[in-house]
């Protein structure tokens, strides 16, 4: 009988926090993809949320062009319902990296009537697609780097590294370009664009191992802290102006951390005491729930929630 125990001694091996063969290969491949897209596309942009995957992306972009400068701007799709500390972190990192920041604002899209107003406390998650595509068209971006990983969701498991989007920003999963060896085909016509996913083959654990090895700074909410929350649909939601307690819910203060960073209205926290990347690693290795399942209400609607959003042009 082969016993597979993720908490066994093998996983406590110091090698897990070194740049081992797997991590080195993943890093090299991501850098390869970033360089290919930057070299072949006219106007790439890196989608940057301040979340851990996009922070790792920005570090990889820096590595790809050292000792030169990152040759593209970053874009944040701002739902207007972000955690304030994430916005602060975003501005700090953008300044430190010396990149230009473009903001695609969901609030502007609502104000200009480009998307329906979901009301003061409604989820703005799905509304991000319109402003994203709007800014891509406005700035004539022909490639957008994203930090999506194939292990996040089953629709994403079918995603290409370099994924074609038509004039309307749509993804057609049944008609994707074959990707052979390490060859990526970035050719498109005017008005079409590409999404590039250099972290496709990384898992949540790889991201955290990379963060630990390279001592990469993240928004503090990724680590355990005290926060006032309510319990809703099995998740802890931070109380705020846009997420007030519902009738019958009693806010309480507990020690939590976030596994993903998204819109405040749909991103939940998990109970945790992990205060360092290594403690987070240990916690994830023992976790039995995917990060999206644990903390994202947006993926709980239907079996094909992500596929449907991706077809429309979502991240």
């Amino acid at each position, binding site marked *: 009988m082969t016993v597979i125990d*993720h908490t066994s001694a093998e996983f406590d091996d110091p090698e897990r926090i070194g740049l081992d063969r797997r991590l080195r290969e993943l890093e090299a491949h991501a850098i390869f993809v970033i360089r*290919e897209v930057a070299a072949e596309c006219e106007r790439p942009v890196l989608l940057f949320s301040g979340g851990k995957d996009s922070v790792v992306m920005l570090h990889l972009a820096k590595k790809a062009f050292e000792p030169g400068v990152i040759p593209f701007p970053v874009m944040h799709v701002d739902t207007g319902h972000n955690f304030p500390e994430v916005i602060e972190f975003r501005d700090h990192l953008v300044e430190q990296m010396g990149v230009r920041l473009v903001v695609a604002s969901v609030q502007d899209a609502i104000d200009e009537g480009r998307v329906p107003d979901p009301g003061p406390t409604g989820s703005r998650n799905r509304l991000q697609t319109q402003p994203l595509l709007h800014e891509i068209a406005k700035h004539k971006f022909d490639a957008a780097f994203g930090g999506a990983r194939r292990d996040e969701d089953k629709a994403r498991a079918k995603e290409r590294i370099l994924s074609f989007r038509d004039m309307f920003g749509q993804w057609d999963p*049944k008609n994707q370009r074959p990707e052979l060896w390490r060859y990526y085909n970035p050719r498109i016509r005017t008005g079409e664009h590409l999404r590039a996913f250099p972290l496709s083959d990384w898992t949540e654990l790889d991201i955290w191992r990379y963060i630990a090895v390279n001592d990469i700074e993240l928004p503090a909410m990724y680590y355990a802290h005290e926060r006032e929350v309510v319990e809703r649909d099995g998740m802890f939601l931070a109380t705020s102006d846009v997420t007030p307690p519902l009738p019958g819910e009693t806010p309480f203060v507990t020690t939590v951390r976030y596994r993903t960073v998204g819109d405040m209205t749909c991103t939940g926290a998990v109970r945790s005491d992990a205060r360092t990347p290594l403690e987070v690693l240990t916690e994830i290795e023992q976790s039995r729930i995917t990060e999206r*399942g644990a903390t994202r209400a947006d993926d709980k609607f239907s079996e094909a929630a992500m596929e449907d959003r991706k077809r429309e042009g979502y991240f």
Partner: protein
Amino acid sequence: MELLRFATAGSVDDGKSTLIGRLLHDTKALFDDVIDAVAATTARRGGEGLDLALVTDGLRAEREQGITIDVAYRYFSTPLRSFVIADTPGHVQYTRNMVTGASTSDVAVILVDARHGLREQSRRHAALSALLGIQHLVLAVNKMDLVDWSEARFEEIRDEFAGFAEQLQVPVVTAIPLCALDGGNVVDPSPHTPWYQGPTLLEHLETLDIPTHDHDALRLPVQVVIKPAVGSGAGPTGERRWYAGSLAGGVPAIGDEIVVLPSGTRSRIAAVEGNAPAVRVQLEHELDVSRGDVIASADDAPLTVPQLTARVAWMGEKPLRSGHHVLVKHGTRTVKAVATILHDRLDVTTLEHEQGVDELALNEIGTVTFITAQSLPVDDYATNRTTGSFIVIDEVTNGTVGAGMVALEAVPA
């Protein structure tokens, strides 16, 4: 930790989705919320327990039609290794997806139903894997429970496959009797096969030697030329340009004699930085080096050729005919090219080469010569999977329509 990439080939009828679901489930790679969702869907469809095939079928159309359409990538790890599965569809109309999955894999697991034995598609999968340079095939003989775990039946299938693999010149072939439905010999040994002394599928994948495709001679296709940022504290060689790329062979060291191709200019490596294979180098001389050039060992350089002869797996809806203008992307260079000669077409089930062909249709494989607008530095595919391969792009649709494997020995008459 080591990373093993393997492709799985077979159809849903052979139990491929169930096998992958079983591997993920029994290695505890499935999280509780995923298991709950699979259990709920199984129950909604009137089933009991967990229908493990549901774990892998991601797209709405796949669930509706009960087939796998596209390559899906899955990840799991054990204390010994981490794995990437390229899950490829079995039907002939998705041959291009099989080729895609195999192109990045070290090993191919070919699945057959013990009741049916080898079928045309099993032969096709084995032949495509061999063509793509996979050195290690695993024959997973599934549904052994439906042939009463018969040793004789297993041996019959194993021997037939061994004969075919020998024709393909695949050096390592392993056959494993298993049952994805009950999990026997997938992760844990089956109590029904006392006659089988070999490893379970997972044990085999955890311990087989990972083939290296590393080529000793330096090959660095230049991706980007980097000028140091102003005020970056440049050292003695700091103002010099860096040539960045991913190593396709060898490891550069300071002082190594190199040649820049296709120009043929020589220099030496002055500096190397980065974690291999993603590196950047500086040269001793200021040369005109740009994206698309290949920096190679001076004493073991690729052959710079004005035309390419290659085995081509055609993936375009429109057939390839001689006289067709296309784009060829080789390494980091994209050039215009024209197909001049179609030498033959390969029947992947009989392995016969059909001569005198006038086109290669979708999912067909043949030997083709292209004249390229610029000479390209190539190696034989058997020697180097990067400098020995290229893709064909349609100039009008921009689609990727072909996969080429350079065959230096197949020089056109």
